[in-house]
């Protein structure tokens, strides 16, 4: 407490912090970025290990024999699907019943706010089919879920076949202590959302669905299976869920452990693990893997059908079969054995998975970075904002230097509340417009301009966003005769603290999003004043604005996936990403779009306002 109470030491500390403010900020920024890049370096990461006792020490034997039969079922399913021209509900019900499950169906319908051009759907109607295998060994209070999405095209038939094969095999075993629910969901995430809402009796997004007729116990874990070929070369694990939420790390550990045991190649973000961490290429491989995870997490959308389970406190992941040109092939029996092993271990759980980490990044499947290691990277960036705020506070608190004639303007020392409040209110109103207008004005836009609905929504969003840039001039029209030297300092102090709190909260919920936003917004927040060169700074400000960050992220993501795109394609992709973001918000309640439009964008506008302070 000596530091807080001794005035001399305080003065020394504060004068050091204000004198060396700029260098300290630069050092912090570099250190933050360096720390983040260091996270992918293998010696700095931890090896994954199974924390859950119930899954670690017990041995299970995998005996699933009937992969070929599952593939035959898959072909039958494909034929029926083609005949019906959608999901063959009757056939599925019959097949599941023949395998001894309690079968139920759920109908749902949902009209999207505007047509989804990626998946070509607008008014969605579908049926989920699920069968429950009742636990013979326990009071049926807990359940596990295995799902396979039924997609309209020809993919994923093998997953449904394997699911039915596993159901048939599981039915004949006596050791199940948890109900196992086999779910074939229609229209991927929309069907999943309907089923989960029905199962938990909630309705958060205003979807129409028929209530579920049968339930198991409370769901402990879920796996989604995506399989589009008879043999696969590797299995990919997808963890990122809605709003960047991740399942407990033990689920990933479980998958990795069984892949090792059975001898299946496993990947994360589609990247194999490499052992040459000390070489440059090995390190860059790890960085790529981690960056892919960061980008996916930051997008806040579910990257597999498992993504919606996480919201209900259910640990879930998607297992995706990948068939590439490698020599080594894995057949359906082996994948079935892998799933059997995983379900038997999950069956042994005594509590929910909670022992291991929930906040982590994975530079490879066998290594992870926990929250304690990655948060300092963000902290180093966030502390810049606080240092700048402290600097401003000291400047505001110390009396302004007397001007030549020895007079200090009385008005100057007390900037009106109005001059700070007006930009705040106006920029938030612009943010609210950005949030509300695109969806509400699509009809009008479609009437007056030759665009489709989806284009109308995206272009309105971009138009509102750009229109907000004209804001400073409007603000000053409202507050005539304002704009003192103290005024912008107060406004900047408010904006800095606002941004710091905002980024801090974002980073806690979704680290990747918070970090990417901090990476771009912190430097501009640190240097912006009305006295820097206008044109150049305005250019930098626009480049670092959230919309441009998104554009760069799209290109960067494509680059990371080793699918670089031309600028033209990238732009198209960018527009579709915006429309997907808005759709994710209204369909599943993803928070990224409201966060950006209602909070981050207004905050950025405040800095834009400071630059054009008159």
């Amino acid at each position, binding site marked *: 407490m000596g530091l807080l*109470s001794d*005035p001399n030491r305080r003065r020394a500390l504060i004068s050091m912090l204000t004198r060396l403010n700029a260098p300290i900020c630069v050092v912090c920024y570099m250190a933050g970025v360096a720390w983040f890049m260091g996270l992918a370096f293998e010696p700095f990461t931890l090896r994954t290990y199974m924390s859950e006792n119930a899954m670690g020490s017990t041995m299970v034997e995998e005996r699933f024999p009937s992969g070929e039969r599952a593939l035959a079922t898959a072909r039958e399913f494909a034929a029926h699907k083609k005949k019906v021209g959608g999901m063959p509900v009757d056939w599925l019900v019959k097949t599941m019943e023949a395998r001894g499950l309690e079968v139920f169906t759920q109908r749902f319908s949902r009209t999207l706010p505007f047509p989804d051009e990626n998946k070509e759907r607008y008014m969605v109607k579908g049926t989920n089919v699920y069968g429950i295998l009742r636990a013979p060994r326990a009071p049926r209070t807990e359940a596990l879920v295995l799902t396979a999405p039924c997609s309209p095209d020809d993919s994923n038939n093998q997953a449904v076949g394997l699911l039915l094969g596993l159901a048939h095999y599981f039915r004949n075993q006596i050791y199940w202590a948890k109900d196992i629910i086999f779910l074939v969901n229609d229209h991927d995430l929309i069907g999943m959302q309907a089923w989960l809402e029905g199962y938990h009796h909630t309705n958060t997004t205003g979807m129409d669905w028929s209530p579920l007729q049968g339930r198991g116990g409370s769901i402990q874990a879920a796996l989604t299976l995506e399989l589009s070929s008879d043999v696969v070369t590797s299995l990919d694990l997808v963890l990122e869920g809605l709003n960047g939420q991740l399942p407990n790390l033990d689920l990933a550990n479980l998958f990795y452990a069984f892949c090792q045991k059975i001898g299946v190649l496993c990947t994360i973000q589609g990247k194999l693990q490499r052992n040459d961490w000390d070489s440059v290429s090995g390190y860059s491989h790890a960085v790529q893997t981690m960056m892919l995870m960061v980008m996916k997490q930051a997008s806040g959308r579910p990257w597999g059908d498992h993504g919606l389970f996480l919201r209900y406190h259910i640990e879930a992941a998607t297992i995706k079969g990948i068939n590439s040109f490698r020599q080594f092939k894995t057949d359906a029996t082996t994948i079935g054995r892998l799933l059997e092993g995983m379900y038997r271990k999950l069956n042994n759980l005594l509590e*929910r998975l909670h022992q291991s980490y929930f906040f982590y990044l994975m530079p490879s499947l066998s290594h992870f970075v926990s929250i304690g290691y990655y948060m300092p990277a963000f902290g180093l960036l966030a502390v810049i904002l606080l240092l700048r*705020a402290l600097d401003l506070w000291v400047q505001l608190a110390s009396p302004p230097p007397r001007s030549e004639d020895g007079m200090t303007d009385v008005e100057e020392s007390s900037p009106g509340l109005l001059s700070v409040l007006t930009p705040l209110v106006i920029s938030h109103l612009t943010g609210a417009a950005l949030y509300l207008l695109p969806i509400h004005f699509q009809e009008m836009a479609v009437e007056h301009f030759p665009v489709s609905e989806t284009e109308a929504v995206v272009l309105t969003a971009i138009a509102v966003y750009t229109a907000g840039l004209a804001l400073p001039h409007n603000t000053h029209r409202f507050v005539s005769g304002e704009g003192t030297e103290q005024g912008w300092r107060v406004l900047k102090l408010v904006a800095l603290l606002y941004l710091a709190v905002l980024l*801090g909260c974002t980073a*806690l919920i979704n680290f990747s999003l918070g970090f990417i936003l901090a990476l771009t917004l912190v430097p501009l927040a640190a240097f912006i004043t009305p006295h820097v060169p206008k044109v150049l700074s305005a250019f930098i400000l626009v480049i670092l604005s959230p919309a441009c960050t998104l554009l760069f992220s799209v290109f960067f993501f494509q680059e990371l996936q080793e699918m670089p795109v031309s600028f033209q394609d990238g732009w198209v992709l960018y527009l579709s990403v915006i429309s997907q973001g808005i759709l994710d918000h209204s369909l599943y309640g993803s928070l990224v779009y409201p966060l950006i439009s209602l909070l981050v964008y207004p905050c950025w506008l405040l800095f834009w306002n400071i630059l054009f302070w008159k």
Partner: protein
Amino acid sequence: MAAPLTLLLIVAVTIRAVLFRSSLAELIAERVEVVSPITAWKRVVEGLALLDLGVSPYAGDVFHETPLIIYLFHFVVDYAEITFMLADVITAVALYMAVKDYNKQVFRKQKFALEADRYPHDCLELIRSPREMYYIPLKVAMFYLLNPFTILSCVAKSTCGLNNAVVAVFILTTIKGNMLLSAIFLCLATYQSIYPLTLCAPAMLYLMQRQYIPVNFRRASFWWFVVQYLFMYLGSLFVLICLSFFLLGSWDYLPSVYGFILSVPDLTPNIGLFWYFFAEMFEHFRLFFLCVFQINVFFYTIPLSIKLKEHPVFLIFMQLAVISIFKSYPTVGDIALYMAFLPVWSHLHRFLRNIFLVSCVLLACSALFPVLWHLWIYAGSANSNFYYAITLLFNVAQILLVSDYFYAFLRREHHLTYGLYLKRKDGSEATLVLK
């Protein structure tokens, strides 16, 4: 001055009315930061339902408010929203009038001191001018009515707003010098939540100061005054307790209200310090630590009263802050009450040292409460330690804030006696160090 106050009241009531009509109201009423097991409206409704069925409202271990509150709402339950808005308005107006009166006295005292030439000559810049004091009462009302904490508390229909109103009226009557009403309202406040008991000391000090009775244990007049005040206080407390007994026809409410406050059986997370400690603690230490924690609230009365016996209004502020930090079920509404007093001490700003740090921490914590709650309860990825860490930080910031004001107040008084620019014995400039 009436016009701005009216305008303020209209704005405040409009904000509340709009929020009551919006969908946010339900969300806010569920927040643990805003309602405690004692003040939650949901529990009051439950108590009312039990009362209507002819069962004792305390039968179900859900309702923990006092009998007077439930009988109040028995009659006005249909106008609950108006009642809560009215309570806020009463609080604000009472604080406004109290502070106005207090400022007048401060100014008069300062004038006498100046005329008697009691202040050192270099202290003229510490003298308060009527111009800067003119808007303080309005600012106090504004700090209370437009404080987001108050608004949240009102929209959640937390009965904390009613307690605040009672305390505010107590402060008003004390400052106006009405001994009987002061005792009665203090007794009402005590009846509501026990802790305002500690406000007894500042009230007596203030009234004695007003009647020119010296605080001297050897004087009979001092003891006569204390006996008088305590008689009125305890007498009205007795009446209230008996009244409650006759209303309900049983003593059920005593363990259910005061036992509940003192023994802290409900460990629902809140912004206070109790829940986590007592959730973690071994059962056989519980009683001991319960005593330690509860004594904390009451104990500071003695040293503070001795140190601040010349400044009872500042003592009231300190006591309110101490209560809202250390009470067993604090909510943001309690914090709002003492924060309303901050403009009264705006002349201390030049002596405050940590105000920037403290306000940053308070701001960040207020934003982090819902975020960490979401991560803990809904997402399931964080745990109670995350939430408690923020609670702890929030309370440390509050303690720093209060001690900062305390230090600044004492320092100003010191300067008013010894001069602003202190010299060491050798003539060099001296600095004050708090150790």
